[in-house]
């Protein structure tokens, strides 16, 4: 099972867990519709597009409504702490949640005692909490953008709003330097996919690949296009690819989908996500060892 957990901006939505289905601008979790906009829903939707193409079991989602009070976030953490050993997912991805260092610590403690430890992936504020609590190395994959990479490299910051000014000024080409600092400070997951003008894939502190083409600058402005990368890398890791392979394919697929959507800064993320099946049909076999019969059609 791949379990994707995070809050969604649906006021009053209770803690909801179940397999995901989709329909254009919405995802459906246990019968409840959630708009496919920036955040957890975009991440889940991208993962679903990938498992659908590959013919894998759809993701299980654990979501709760939270517009900033933190109640949904705490419900998600508490549910995971109580149930993760029983659920035993192969991949666990943590996404938009109120960063809570204590609950993150408890969850990591429980995961550490699981018979089958899941592949642990974090993005958004779940990544912030993991870094701030000194638990980054418990995670297999982080997917920061360039500013979040600077945050991981800043030993004192507990949120990107507090990174040192000289680190915010850093451009993406200095990513290897920031990565080295973050690794030295034990603030990095084993694999980092740093999203930017050039995407960097870093394994155990070493840059193992970069992706810069196609160049679609508008993607940075579109809310949710970083979230889709997290969903893609989760799904490809669930499919059995090595983390660095999953990350490289995720970075390429997101760019090509943006290009196919003819993305402008006003494009919505679901318009990018709906390109993924065609992108996979055309490119996945060449990018990976995943070549489905019928020229890639599952």
């Amino acid at each position, binding site marked *: 099972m791949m379990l994707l957990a995070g*809050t*969604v*901006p649906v006021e009053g939505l209770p803690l909801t867990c179940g397999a995901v289905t989709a329909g254009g601008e919405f995802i459906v979790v246990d019968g409840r519709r959630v*708009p496919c*906009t*920036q*955040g*957890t*829903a975009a991440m889940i939707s991208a993962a679903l597009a990938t498992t659908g193409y590959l013919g894998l079991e759809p993701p299980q989602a654990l979501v709760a409504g*939270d*517009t*900033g*009070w*933190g*109640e*949904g*976030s705490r419900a998600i953490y508490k549910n995971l702490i109580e149930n993760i050993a029983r659920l035993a997912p192969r991949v666990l991805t943590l*996404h*938009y*949640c*109120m*960063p*809570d*260092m*204590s609950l993150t*610590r408890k969850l990591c403690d429980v995961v550490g005692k699981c018979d089958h430890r899941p592949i642990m992936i974090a*993005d*958004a*504020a*779940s990544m*912030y909490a993991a870094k*701030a*609590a000194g638990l980054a190395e418990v995670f297999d994959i982080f997917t920061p*953008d360039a*500013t*979040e990479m600077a945050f991981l490299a*800043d030993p*004192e*910051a*507990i*949120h*990107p*709003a*507090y*990174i*040192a*000014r000289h680190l*915010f000024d850093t451009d993406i080409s200095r990513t290897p330097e920031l990565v080295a600092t973050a690794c030295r400070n034990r603030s990095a997951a084993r694999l980092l996919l740093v999203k930017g003008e050039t995407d960097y894939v870093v394994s155990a502190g070493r840059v193992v690949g970069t992706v810069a083409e196609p160049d679609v*600058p*508008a993607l*940075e*402005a*579109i*809310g949710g*296009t*970083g979230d889709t990368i997290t969903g893609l890398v989760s799904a490809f890791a669930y499919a059995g690819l090595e983390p660095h392979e999953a990350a490289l394919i995720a970075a390429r697929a997101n760019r090509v989908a943006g290009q196919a959507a003819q993305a*402008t*800064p*006003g*494009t919505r993320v679901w318009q990018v996500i709906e390109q993924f099946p065609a992108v996979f049909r055309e490119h996945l076999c060449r990018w990976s060892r995943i070549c489905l019969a019928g020229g890639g059609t599952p």
Partner: protein
Amino acid sequence: MTFLKRKKPVLEGGGVVLFREVQEALKAEKVVKEAGYGVKLIAPPPELRKGCDLALEVNLVEKPGIQRALDAKDVGYVGVVPLKVGASELLDIVKVTDFGEWVMVKAANMKLTFEKRSGTIVNTSGGGCPDIPHLHAEMIEKKLTDVARPRDIGFTLCALMLDRALDEGLELWQGGPQS
């Protein structure tokens, strides 16, 4: 045989609310707790003392919501700052990217993009706190001048950074239509 068990801390918030008076700290604890936030009375690190030896540890990420709760009840405080001595100040610089018909303003991890001609917000991106997807839905397709301020309806540092991006966007827009 007696075993001593260390009680685990219930809050690792990374932020501290500083006060001039002990009474204000005690009042603030009640207000913040009643507003639903995690809170712990602590002695501030000596470097952060501002005249009172009692402070509140809070989740720094929830700074805007906590400040709003204190302000609503007229509780005086000196500031909400990182607990770690040596941590940087809140970022106060922004970056601007010109996309031709659109302008993107970036403050820390938050980005806001508006159409030059109309001043309409077409997207927000970045961030990771739970109020951000909500603010995204609230803000897009609205004019910079008409939209609710993230600092007023958001609760987190991500919302505060989005508010800074909006500030800069407004300044650019009100400085005249972008060429």
